[in-house]
């Protein structure tokens, strides 16, 4: 199986020594981890409610109707109001709200004012609200989570297909290679954006439909590099040795060639993450992405663009995009430098 070879260890060490990239990686991972726990930080549901001796943890799971806390409605408790009420009552009951007490879907309308409203610390809208009165920070964070995981999923699937097919092309060569090459050339001439526009005008795209469309059109570009390196790799002694031992083609490709070439692919991965985020954001921006009211950066960007006077919308999302994409680029550069073959290989 694939184990960490001394060579890889060396690369990792080298990567760690590039402080900007390594720092970016840590920060990026921290952001992703934080976004996973977003419900605890940004939500209209309280983290803990202590009411008449009982503890409630409403964050995950089913709704707790207002009647539980002796409120006069059966729909989900409004914890912000509950917190305010319990505070004034001072009866020993209390509510611990997340730092941002809004979820990305609810509209917070103020009396006599119309959204978007500027950042306000007193109302805990740290980045203001969007044109529908929804918290910009909440939508940024939840939008980030969706975009990043979309892009991870896209990366994994396209790379799996691209690497496998690319290796096969390089390894078998000949007619198979020629045929698949032409297929890819034709396939990559299909205009992705138009296809998405057409599809999303007929069905409302969901996370998975979008993912499938992007995969269907995204795998092709991943094959070329693998094909080239496999061509080179398959002539080398260890491949010949494996073959002479009677290893099957699949085994040679997956257990010998890919582990030895993976570093080349890895250097592209961070940039692909950035590409994925940009792709989803631009689709949402154009209105062909995930359906409303899914929180999304593209939608925020669109809102910001058409309401430039509400500077906090466009600023928030632009800064968020710049930060994310810069982090990813730093990581990518560091990975490329760390995995640079000139540092590690000596050509025969």
């Amino acid at each position, binding site marked *: 199986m694939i184990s960490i070879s001394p060579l890889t260890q060396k690369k990792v060490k080298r990567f760690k020594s590039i402080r900007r990239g390594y720092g970016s990686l840590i920060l990026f991972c921290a952001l992703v981890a934080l976004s996973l726990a977003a419900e605890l930080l940004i939500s209209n549901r309280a983290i803990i409610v202590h009411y008449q001796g009982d503890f409630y943890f409403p964050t995950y799971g*089913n*709704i707790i*109707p207002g009647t539980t806390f002796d409120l006069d*409605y*059966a*729909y*989900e408790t409004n914890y912000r109001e509950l917190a305010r009420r319990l505070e004034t009552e001072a009866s020993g009951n209390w509510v611990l709200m997340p730092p941002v007490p809004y979820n990305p*879907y*609810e*509209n917070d*309308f103020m009396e006599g004012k*119309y*959204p978007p409203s500027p950042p306000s610390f007193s109302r805990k809208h740290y980045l203001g609200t969007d*044109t*529908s*009165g*929804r918290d910009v920070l909440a939508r940024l964070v939840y939008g980030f989570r969706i975009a990043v995981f979309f892009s991870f999923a896209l990366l994994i699937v396209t790379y799996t297909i691209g690497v496998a097919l690319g290796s096969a092309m390089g390894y078998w060569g000949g007619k198979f290679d020629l045929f698949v090459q032409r297929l890819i050339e034709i396939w990559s001439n299909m205009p992705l954006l138009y296809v998405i526009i057409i599809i*999303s*005008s*007929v069905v*409302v795209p969901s996370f998975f439909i979008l993912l499938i469309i992007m995969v269907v059109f995204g795998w092709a570009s991943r094959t070329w590099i693998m094909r080239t390196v496999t061509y080179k790799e398959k002539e080398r002694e260890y491949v010949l040795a494996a073959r002479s031992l009677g290893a099957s083609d699949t085994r040679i490709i997956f257990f010998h060639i890919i582990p030895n070439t993976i570093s080349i692919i890895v250097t592209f991965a961070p940039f692909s993450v950035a590409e994925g985020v940009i792709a989803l954001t631009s689709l949402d921006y154009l*209105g062909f992405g995930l*359906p*409303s*009211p899914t929180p999304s950066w593209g939608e925020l960007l669109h809102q910001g663009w058409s309401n430039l*006077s509400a500077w906090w919308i466009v600023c928030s999302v632009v800064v968020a995009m710049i930060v994310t994409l810069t982090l990813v680029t730093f990581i990518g550069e560091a990975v490329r430098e760390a995995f640079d073959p000139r540092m590690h290989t000596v050509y025969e």
Partner: protein
Amino acid sequence: MQKTKRLLIILLAFLMTLTVACSSDKDKNKTEKAEPLLVVNPPFKAPVSETGPPENIKWITNESDPVYASPEAVTGGTLRLAITDFPLTFRVVGPDSNSSFRSAILDNQLSLVSVHPNTENIVPEIATHWAFGDDKKTMYFKLNPNARWSDGVPVTAHDFAYTLEFMRSKHIVAPWYNDYYTKEIDRVIVYDDHTLAVMATKAQPDLHLRVALAPTPAHFYGTLNDRFVQDYNWKVTPNTGPYQISDFQKGKYIEFTRKNDWWGKDLHYFKNRFNVDHVVYTVIRDYSMLWEYFKKARVDVFGITIPDYWYNKTDTPIVNNGYVHKIWFFNDTQRSASGIWLNQDNSLFADKNVRYAFAHAMNIEKVIKTVLRGDYFRLEQGFVGYGAYTNNDIKARRYDLEKVEQYMKQAGWERGADGIWEKGETRFSVNVTYTHEEHTSRLVVLKEEAKKAGIELNLRRLDPAAAFKQILEKKHDAAWMGWSTSLRPQYWEHFHSVNAHKPQTNNITNTDDPEMDRLIDAYRNSLDEKEREALSRQIQAKVHDIGCFVPTFMVPYVRQACWRWWRLPEPPGTRHSEDLFNPFSSITGGLFWFDQALYDQTQAAMENGTTFPPVTEIDKTYLTGRDNP
């Protein structure tokens, strides 16, 4: 070396073809003067009836209804308007003719008679007198002998007979018109050059709406052939109205010019109207770009009904300095039946209790108060603004969580763990199909409020064509849409069981109710106005009772911004005006005029920086029985 040379030659050749292609393109872009109109065809003569019109008919005319133009109006000036797309053809029938620009051409094509915008009485256009036959399907008309086509040829009764011939011709490639003029209009009888009768195929109420044909210039079209569609794409057809296309450049602009000595200019209802000399439509493809054009005074009028424009975007120097006036004009016209249409073939909405609960879970009032800034009004039912045909007792179901609870429990549903109602395997989760991105902000509020009531809304925005297809195939749960209006409410297409449970009909709620069918049939067959009005009100009560339609908003007004040299009568529009600066409509158009003195004054003021007090005119003449905004 040889190779490079060859490549160079090829490149050079390519470049040359490019330049040639470009220059020929330029030639094509030359301004196209409208072609001179020539009488080329022998006049069309329909067979003249040997007997005259019946003796016992009573000729009527109407010169006594109030006029709504201003006697102060003077002629002159150019009104500059914008269109988003250049029309694909100037034909008004046949392929590609159904563009929004068509109305500009059609409005200059007068009919026999028309309807007064304030009183809804019949008023003359090309006919001076009219009479109703006893059979309730024939109307007789006497034409105005002065009526002329724009090329000077007199309008005769034969031109109306030719309309039928023309509209029924297969050469115009317009199946809908072929069908309509065959199935609805039986024939046109010509008694002499200025007397005719138009006969509908069946007796009907409001006969004048059906048989008031517009003439078609027989001398211009002559005998039609299968080259009609190509030949008449860019021909300027003679018309009878006040303006005619005088100049255009494809893709850029179209200019209309007022006729020098228009035959109708002194008629009772046309006097002091149609005042500007020219109306120019420029193609401006983007709405925000149009706003910039307007701010630079390169377009005279701009629609600011949208709250964002009325409140925010017009907070700009040209308005604050008083160079541009804002007008908020309330009208009282038929309102689009816009709202949420529930598909009763969907098992979820089969139960009336569930439909009622759904209606009570829609917090339309909150949307109006928040997203729409209190600018829109609640639509109480689908047929508001039809005068006596409207049942004003109906009030839309208001947001009420207790009622939702009560109806859902009656229907045997229970709240699930996530707060959404459940019954067996079914969750009360509804896909709402809609088309306009601007409506998303309204729907997200409804969604959040509905969640409190235990109903999950999934917003499904589709491209208009795809959404309409889904809805007409009755594959939707709930459709967020509005219907266009007509002078009288139409029920058969929307609520009769004949149109239920099958694709491509307008009964998108799949309403199938025997009592409803009885009412609609009676309404359709009745020739008595009072009875029809009563039936109409009953049908509306029945629609409310079935609860398959949740009415949402109406906008009982129009808001426009115009440069201050434009003047309007008092009140600035009519009961049915939807655009105060409509230049051509024979019913509501052409009321404004250009004030040269104000123009000079404003231009001078803008140059030396003096300002005027800002003007926001709010006209409530036709705001009836509603709270003031």
